[in-house]
């Protein structure tokens, strides 16, 4: 039931609204995976990043799409928690774990079940339209499931349409999807490669005159 509610909301409400209000003119959609396990790695400046990524996929792939999101933020009250878990379909991530606990356990299970994770390697939205250093969680997930392709995505303009803690203003947001990157044993090299792939996509976006 919920699965269909999620599909319907996305197809008849979220996707048309996104096209109207933020344009969603995207490139490289052919690189998106059709099935899991896979990891989508994108830059993160805004709450609409998750919606943008959900809207990129065909409706039927939605069932296996799971954004990994901060538990302290999204599970803050019952309504937000229900919506985040069932409609957005998040895997909650505890940012302050109890000692010895694997905070990525649920995300790893999802990969093992053949789902597609949406991960923001910066870990937080940060300053509008700027990229923060990547956190190691993405490498641990890739290490756990080495056959999963990691698809780099650069989201352009989301931090301007809806920056952290401010109101929404309609402005065009676009996503640039690149060719997959795969895990290899050298963690720092892997992280460099992934970050480089996202920065290459960033260079394709139109210049942003905003200061």
């Amino acid at each position: 039931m919920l699965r269909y509610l999620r599909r319907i909301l996305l197809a008849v409400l979220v996707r048309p609204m996104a096209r109207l209000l933020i344009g969603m003119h995207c490139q490289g959609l052919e690189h998106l995976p059709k099935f899991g396990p896979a990891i989508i790695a994108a830059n993160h400046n805004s709450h609409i990043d998750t919606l943008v990524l959900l809207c990129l996929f065909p409706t039927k792939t939605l069932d296996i799409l799971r954004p990994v999101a901060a538990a302290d933020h999204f599970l803050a009250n019952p309504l937000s928690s229900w919506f985040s878990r069932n409609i957005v379909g998040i895997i909650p991530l505890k940012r302050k774990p109890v000692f010895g606990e694997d905070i990525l356990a649920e995300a790893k299970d999802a990969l093992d079940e053949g789902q597609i994770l949406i991960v923001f390697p910066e870990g937080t939205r940060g300053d509008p339209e700027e990229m923060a250093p990547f956190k190691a969680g993405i490498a641990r997930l890739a290490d756990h499931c080495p056959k999963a392709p990691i698809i780099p995505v650069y989201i352009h303009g989301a931090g301007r349409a809806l920056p952290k803690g401010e109101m929404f203003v309609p402005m065009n947001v676009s996503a640039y999807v690149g060719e997959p990157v795969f895990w290899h044993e050298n963690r720092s090299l892997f992280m460099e490669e992934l970050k480089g792939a996202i920065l290459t996509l960033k260079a394709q976006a139109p210049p942003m005159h905003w200061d």
Partner: protein
Amino acid sequence: MEDTGYFEAALVGAPNPLSIGIAAVFIALIIGTLAAFILPRLQKGKWTDLGPRMYSWWVIVGIIVAALYLGKMPFIILFGLISFLALKEYLSLAPTRKEDRPIILLAYSAIIVAYWAIAIDEYPFFLTLVPVYLFLGLALAMAWIGRTEGYLATVGIIYWGVVVCVTNVGYVALLMQVPPMELPLQSPTGLVFFLLVITEVNDVAQYVWGKSFGKNKITPNVSPNKTWEGAIGGFVTTFLIIWFLGPVFTPLKGLPLALLGVLLPIAGFGGDITMSAIKRDLGVKDTSNALPGHGGILDRIDSLTFTAPIYFHFLAYFALDKF
């Protein structure tokens, strides 16, 4: 019900010029679509964007023709939507400051104000509320925010977008408020149809003449693909169409019609190179890729933002009692 009665009559009576015109547009689309299938096979590597370009044309023409047949209000709402998409595209590209986000929201209110004035048929409101008073409001609100560095440039940038995308595009919708009895076809639909057709034919004719005979660049720094041969060929083609078909669709004739025939194609060219200059300044090739094969909404309506006010004011001054 005046604006729909005309079409009911059209359905039972003999073919009228508007039906023939719309049929001609669809025939042109079919020919273009066939060319999009055949040409890439004859010359490998060339004509690759003709396919997506024709696909977008079908969508554009389909939506506009549907709105024209639905009547006055749906058409006004459609153009309000086009103004919104164009202004959003412009504000997403133009340089703005972080503090200006509320000002951008205020700029969008121009669409509601202008199209409300059109919908309630208050021409003086349309002429003053956005171009004069919203202009003052934007400048005041921005001064209130308090960042003075870059103030004048940003007020100018935002106002430019509002006038081009809202007021100038709004003139197309305003044409729907021309009283039917002042027009040869007893309906403003033909008036709007004729403006859109001559504006787009002018674009296409300049392109075709330029591709076929173009040699001498007309604006090498702004738009290097434009040539004197293309521009003049296009101007003459559009003049002839306006001269011969103008009396069918508009109340203009004689010298005013000839003058419109000269000025409108030049205005269309002006809109085109103005947008090119802006794109050069901002470092982009297209304003977005909302319309595959064309670029953005602004790439498609750039000529119209110049031709619509001129067409309207020519009609208002020389032929219409109401305006």
